[in-house]
């Protein structure tokens, strides 16, 4: 087990390095330049000399390899450098956004779990009845309705019918819980619906699988009491893939809410990502991609660990 753990941790390193290298070079290939964009983007005219000054100030005039090495060296020391756009330390810039993104991800996860577990189990137990159909249609609709469109509709309904709008600036939960929830509840619902759809489907198929197992069939035949006991037991196994899916979706939520954050004006990681990539803020984009990838890889690792721990059948060399 310990060896497996170590192996798993070590495997994360080449992946993350690959992500870092890939995003670093892809960004430099992408046409456009942060300095030019900043000036020309406002319609202002800046002479060549001013542009070159700025580029030098940002270190963009150094050879690519040198830039890459110094960036990697910084990361090894947990120093992500400064944003090319604001000139502020990237760690500070991200910290402000991460608080919101994390909270939103947690809220959406809670909503998803609250919907998915009962609905998914119900659909499985009542397979091929109208209950199953309703649950499936509900969950597939969740996958189909674009979250951003749902968000737009939510805002419109509030504005037109209630003449009210969720707060547009973020208040930390510990400062003012009500204002905080009033802002984040709605995007959490819009996102959580889709998220719950993914989890419901997984729950349904996992439970179905368990129900097909021989010992459950026997138990079901035997009677109610035993059935309950075994079901509880079986559910625990069935939940493994559900946990995995929820974990990975959670990691995705931290950086992937690109469009929803825009619709609700959430100052989160997804918005920061879109802004930095369109501005060609290389350092910031690199750090964000790395962060999101790390979250993903790390959650994957945790899920594997959980599998190994919960399911004694899985043995690792």
């Amino acid at each position, binding site marked *: 087990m310990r060896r497996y753990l170590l192996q798993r941790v070590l495997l994360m390193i080449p992946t993350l390095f*690959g992500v870092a290298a890939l995003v670093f070079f892809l*960004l430099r290939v992408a046409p456009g330049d942060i300095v030019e964009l900043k000036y020309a983007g406002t319609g202002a005219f800046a002479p060549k000399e001013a542009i070159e000054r700025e580029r030098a100030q940002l270190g963009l005039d150094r050879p690519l390899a040198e830039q890459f090495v110094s960036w990697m060296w910084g990361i090894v020391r947990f120093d992500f450098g400064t944003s090319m756009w604001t000139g502020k330390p990237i760690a500070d810039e991200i910290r402000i956004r991460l608080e919101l993104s994390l909270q939103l991800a947690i809220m959406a996860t809670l909503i998803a779990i609250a919907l998915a577990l009962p609905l998914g189990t119900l659909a499985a137990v009542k397979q091929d009845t109208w209950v199953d159909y309703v649950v499936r249609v509900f969950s597939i609709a969740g996958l*189909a309705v*674009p979250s951003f469109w749902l968000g*737009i509709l939510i805002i*419109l309904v509030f504005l037109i019918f209630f003449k009210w709008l969720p707060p547009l600036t973020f208040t930390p939960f510990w400062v003012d819980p009500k204002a905080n929830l009033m802002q984040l509840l709605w995007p959490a619902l819009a996102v959580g619906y889709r998220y719950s759809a993914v989890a419901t489907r997984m729950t349904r198929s996992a439970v179905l699988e368990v129900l097909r197992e021989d010992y459950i069939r026997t138990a079901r035949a035997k009677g109610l009491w035993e059935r309950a006991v075994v079901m509880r037991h079986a559910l625990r196994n069935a939940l493994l893939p559900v946990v995995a899916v929820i974990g990975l979706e959670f990691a995705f939520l931290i*950086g992937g809410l*690109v469009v929803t954050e825009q619709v609700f004006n959430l100052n989160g990681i997804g918005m920061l990502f879109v802004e930095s990539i369109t501005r060609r803020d290389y350092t910031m984009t690199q750090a964000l*991609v790395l962060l*999101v990838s790390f979250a993903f890889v790390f959650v994957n690792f945790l899920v594997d660990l959980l599998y190994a721990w919960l399911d004694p059948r899985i043995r690792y060399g």
Partner: protein
Amino acid sequence: MAQAQALTTLAAPPRLRRWAEACVGFARARPLGAAGALIILMMALAALLADVIAPYDPLTNNYAAMFRPPDALHWFGTDAFGRDVLSRVVYGSRTALWVGFCSSFLGTTLGALIGIASAYFGGRTDLLMQRLMDILLSFPLIVLALVVVAVLGTGLWNVVLAITVPMIPRAALVVRSSALALRQMPFVDAALALGVGHWRVIFRHMLPNVMAPYLIMLTAFLGQAILLEASLSFLGLGVAEPTPAWGLMLRGAAVEFAERAPWMALFPGLAISLAVFAFNLFGDSLRDALDPKLRVA
């Protein structure tokens, strides 16, 4: 004409009939899936016959008819340029299906090939491929698509590519695990013993046997691809105005004019939802029919 049709029905080879029977059977056993298939069929028809169905040219601006609410002339109303929303939704299905089919076909096929090759050759190749796929997998779908768009620029084909790239590792992962089991099968060894070349074994013996996960993924990705295209177009990074595309129709104007002209925001959104819904419905049932244990992320 009617006679010819009757003839073909009569002369239908047993194969065709088997297909028809399979379809009926599928529809009976899985009504939801059949409903999905029906919607897809209708959309495909709308896309193919857009020139006939659409009441107006989707590109012609008509400044005398800006923001017209739905009525007998314009069933879905008109947009800020006086263009008929229904016509644009109908033509939009072309864009959606085209981008969806191209990218999910490309993504699944490339992914399947990589997955099979990876499983077949094993060893170092497999390890390297796996690491590479891991790297691509650790980007969220939209993040990777955004990076690809940044490099390639916007436009129809670039959007197809931007959606294809993140699909590849996801398909490769699933196909690889199916192919791993196949690799152990005796017929593969037999073929190799007969001196059949590697690529021939892959194409003739392994590829046909991963058809089930391949098809399941293809349909699952179709829905996702349509959704992703809509998101990219909504962000202004997808297809360009005045091309009719659902995500694009939701962009900017639809939200800004939502109160004055809610139909502009409503119908394209419904179209996206319905399309993705149909593909998922169908894909789910297809999975249940072909390989109920398969999990597609």
